[in-house]
């Protein structure tokens, strides 16, 4: 990726030997908040392109409108009505609405890239994420009791909104951690604790601790997956069927440990963050199946990837941390001339 390389300071003066010998001072500290914004923009770009899959432009139960309507079940009547109302609009104008949805996501992705538009883009992303959470994810299954974090509960798209708030541009230092730069250390820690506390609760309520429900969660995804993932799914299904309740309780305990992690000394915080990232990376692959993208019927990568990004924004940084400092610029010798 070109961004990891260094900027050309000046054109060559004379010989290659002179160029190689010429070193310029190191740049200032790396802007990690900006780096994370760009990673978030990359995920938005992935979402935009996923929206361009052919089935999204079709009507019927296998189309986008059918997908939206299926999310209404289990919700209170008036909420279900709003979801099916939206589904009917998509049903009648599948090409127009889907092209519009994709365009909005392209605008968010590229809007975050430019410094001048990053704030409006992040603001739109919050509104859009909440809209998708309501109309496109059926409120994450909260009202139907199926919002287990194993399946992405309380809604993978909420993490986009949360990250947009925590990564809102603000001048200042990335220390003690990136998420604190905008909202402050105290508020950022409260946000973290509440988020993970909520995830812990969702592990245990509704169908979140029922072995059969957890088994069905994975079984519903394995159709169309590549062989290696389908094989992994079968192991996960068997595991949930026999140890579903224990797994739910275990994940709830992990979430509570992670929730308290930001109030611990830095070293222990790092341990809890690694725990969170490893656990949710495993869930993202073995349970969420990358959001179902590999089966060719997904609109986003679900929550696993975003949770890992969220955890990274809370990674404790020190003045001597290599993450916060750029490497010195390299010489300006022409790469091409090396040959």
């Amino acid at each position, binding site marked *: *990726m*070109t*961004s*990891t*390389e*260094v*900027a*050309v*300071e*000046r*054109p*060559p003066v004379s010989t290659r030997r002179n160029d190689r010998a010429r070193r310029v001072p190191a*740049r200032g500290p790396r802007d990690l908040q*900006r780096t994370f914004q*760009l*990673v978030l*923009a*990359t995920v938005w*770009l*992935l979402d935009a*392109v*996923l929206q*361009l*899959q*052919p089935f999204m*432009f*079709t*009507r019927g139960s296998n*189309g986008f409108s059918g997908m939206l309507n299926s999310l209404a079940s289990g919700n209170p009547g008036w909420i279900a009505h709003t979801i099916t109302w939206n589904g009917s609009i998509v049903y009648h104008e*599948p*090409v127009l609405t889907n092209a519009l949805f994709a365009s909005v996501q392209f605008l968010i*992705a*590229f809007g975050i*890239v*430019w410094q001048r538009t990053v704030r409006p883009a992040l603001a739109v992303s919050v509104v859009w994420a909440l809209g998708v959470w309501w109309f496109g994810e059926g409120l994450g299954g909260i009202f139907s009791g199926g919002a287990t974090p194993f399946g992405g509960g309380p809604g993978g798209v909420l993490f986009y909104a949360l990250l947009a708030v925590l990564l809102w541009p603000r001048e200042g230092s990335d220390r003690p951690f990136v998420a604190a730069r905008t909202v402050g250390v105290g508020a950022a820690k409260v946000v973290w604790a509440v988020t993970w506390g909520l995830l812990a609760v969702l592990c245990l309520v509704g169908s979140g601790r029922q072995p059969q429900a957890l088994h069905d969660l994975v079984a519903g995804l394995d159709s*169309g997956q*590549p062989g*290696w*993932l389908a094989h992994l799914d079968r192991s996960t299904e068997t595991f949930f069927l026999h140890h579903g309740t224990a797994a739910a309780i275990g994940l709830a305990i992990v979430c509570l440990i992670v929730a308290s992690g930001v109030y611990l000394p830095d070293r222990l915080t790092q341990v809890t963050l690694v725990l969170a990232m490893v656990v949710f990376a495993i869930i993202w692959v073995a349970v969420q199946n*990358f959001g179902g*993208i*590999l*089966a*060719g019927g997904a609109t986003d990568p679900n929550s696993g990837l975003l949770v890992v990004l969220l955890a990274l924004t809370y990674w404790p940084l020190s003045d001597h941390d290599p993450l916060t400092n750029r*490497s010195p610029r*390299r*010489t*300006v*010798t*022409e*790469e*091409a*001339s*090396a*040959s």
Partner: protein
Amino acid sequence: MTGSPTWLYHLFAGLMLAVAAYCLLLLFVSAKERRMSGWDVDIAHIAMGIAMAGMFITEWSFGASWAWEFAFFVLMIWFIARSIQSIQEFGIHLPHYAIHALMSLAMLLMFAFPGGASGGPAPAMGMSETAGSRLDPGLSLLLAFAFFASAIFTLASHSKGASHHGTHVPDYALVGAVDGDGRVGDHAHVRPIGVLDKVVAAPWLEDASHVVMCVAMGLMLILMI
């Protein structure tokens, strides 16, 4: 209109041909100015643009699949060699040529596994079918994500034009590339060039062609899942 969005494929195929035409023009201008850094990227983008247009629209495809595979294999090896060379020259870093090696690999895979990752109908209709061979969708997703990241980080980079020339190359700065601190290349070294040439070789335009290529290639990989 419902079903397969052919208008979308036409749009992307048109964009691919536009990128190929632009890179051909850029190659011509660069040769005229004897400013040949980035020529390999231009050639790769020309080949990729033409091949991708044929993947999006069957009628626009031509040439034997094996010939395209050979071309992209050669390009991939070339960019891998340039990446290694860059690391030897400048130490451990992510070389500029790595993304072009990955793009060449993706093209090679898309021709080698034309049936798509899951065996479903891919829009890559211009490619010959290889029975029983399927591209792993996980690899497709990984490559697509790398291309999207390249598009985003290229746009955000302060080193304009780096998508074609890398950031170790000084002469792309001669046509106005601006670094992170707003400095431009040393104009004492700039040869006078025409306005049209300057527009064609504008670093932001070079980056735009790379971004379009990355998004289109990522879309094709997603469509092949």
